[in-house]
């Protein structure tokens, strides 16, 4: 009679008012948020890209600043979604009890989890758009294929939000998320060919790297940002999709268990 714990996701159109709720909160804080979205990549790109880049010359056949910018935009998409689906979703779910008040209305938990995933991906999109503006303004790249990178990066947001929601469902407090960032996210950024090419690493580590969603994201996004066609789409996108689908399903089951026991 109840939604069984393991039922497939059943999101409905009632997810949308929940997304709009989060959007309305964001709009109230949009100016500092967008400034942060622009300032952070601007500082990193100028400092590391030009500073370090002048020492390195070309990396993987392109100026280091291009290499860095086209890789770190994928990190930003992943980080923005992860942060939103951990800290922000947790404060709505657990601290402010916003989810509880929404559940008293005719909105199902499946709708809320779907909305949080969607919203976290939207946050990725805002962040990515800001970085694209910086990349274009600094003249790092103005390739039209950047526009194709946008939907891919939003999908990266979907993937990382879905995986992060698993840990949101398990969390007892914010401290838990610190582990996720230091033990999962930070090592992953170093293993995904963002800051240096993967062929610098021993072969066993490279094998690990090729199983990571961020590596897959960089593989597709980097060429599109600098105006090239990705050598392959299928495998990396399939890997991202696998993380997204698996993560989302596990997150939903765990969240149902958390709320309905």
């Amino acid at each position, binding site marked *: 009679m109840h939604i069984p714990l393991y039922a497939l996701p059943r999101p409905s159109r009632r997810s949308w008012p929940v997304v709009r709720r989060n959007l*309305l*909160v964001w709009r109230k804080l949009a100016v500092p948020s967008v400034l942060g979205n622009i300032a952070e990549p601007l500082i990193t790109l100028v400092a590391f890209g030009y500073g370090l880049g002048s020492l390195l010359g070309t990396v993987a056949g392109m100026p280091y600043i291009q290499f860095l910018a086209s890789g770190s935009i994928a990190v930003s998409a992943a980080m923005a979604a992860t942060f939103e689906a951990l800290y922000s979703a947790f404060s709505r779910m657990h601290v402010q009890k*916003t989810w509880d008040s929404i559940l*008293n209305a005719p909105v199902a938990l499946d709708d809320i989890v779907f909305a949080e995933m969607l919203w976290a991906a939207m946050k990725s999109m805002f962040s990515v758009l800001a970085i694209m503006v910086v990349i274009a303004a600094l003249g790092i790249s103005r390739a039209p294929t950047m526009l194709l990178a946008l939907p891919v990066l939003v999908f990266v947001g979907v993937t990382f939000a879905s995986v992060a929601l698993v840990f949101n469902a398990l969390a007892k407090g914010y401290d838990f998320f610190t582990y996720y960032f230091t033990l999962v996210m930070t090592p992953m950024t170093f293993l995904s060919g963002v800051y240096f090419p993967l062929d610098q690493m021993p072969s066993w580590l490279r094998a690990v790297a090729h199983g990571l969603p961020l590596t897959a994201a960089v593989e597709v996004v980097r060429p599109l940002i600098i105006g090239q066609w990705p050598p392959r789409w299928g495998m990396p996108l399939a890997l991202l999709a696998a993380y997204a689908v698996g993560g989302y399903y596990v997150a939903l089951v765990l969240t149902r268990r958390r709320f*309905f026991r």
Partner: protein
Amino acid sequence: MPEAAELFRAEHLTKHYGASRVVDDLTFALRAGECLGVIGPNGAGKTTTLRMCLGLAAPDSGTIDAFGRPLMAHLREAKQRIGVVAQFDSLDPDFTCRENLRVYGRYFGLPAQTIEARIPGLLDFASLQSKAEARPGELSGGMKRRLSLARALVNDPDLLLLDEPTTGLDPQARHLMWERLQALLQQGKAILLTTHFMDEAERLCDRLLVIDRGRKIAEGTPRGLIAEHLESDVVEVYGDGAIDVSERHAALADRVERSGETAFFYLRSPRALLEALAPRHDVRYLHRPANLEDLFLKLTGRQIRDES
């Protein structure tokens, strides 16, 4: 007057959490315009019962019908007609009062025009017209509760579920809340409320359900329950001589209870006891009619229950 239509019926509800049975064979029904109060000590199963009424917890056995149809099979339609005020305010701290109402209205799928048309009336009802652009952080406890109530009314519900609606409010705020709830009953809405305040139960509720350890232990009108379970009068005796009085004059009452240094005499004809007390200077006493608090203590005992 013909009986109003039955809106809600729960039959033989049972719910376990692990090995403990939190709700045990609970049956109740609610008609339009009626207020049913659920009273019981902490951990009696009140909140769990409300959660089941909202489909947020599935009963292990038993059935719930809302508006004539099985609740779980028609959950969304049923919730479309229910308003909820939870035990703890869960207003959106980032939104103004107006935005809280607007955003909540969207969860019901209401068109923007309908919501905007209702907001002034809701703010008015909650006496928050001047606070429309204030955030919950700027409101007093009573204002927050009234905003929670207004939010629960945004869908113009037929049934309201209120979990301890006046806990933590000062007397003025409680009276204003009661006045508003009575107005809603006048409009024909049904209210199911849980409370720890016997004066609230007596004032608002047409019928009461006394539950303890998940079981219904009494049901009836406030006056009817008192008449059924209690002697008509109570004499409370305090002071150094209270214990002595309770031992010496126990025969003058139908029942005597002691709680610390206070003796409670439950009796039908108080004259003899009052005459015995009058000359004593070592006690103070209060003679009053029996009330719901006495009933509650008689049925559920005087011992303290831990929060659960």
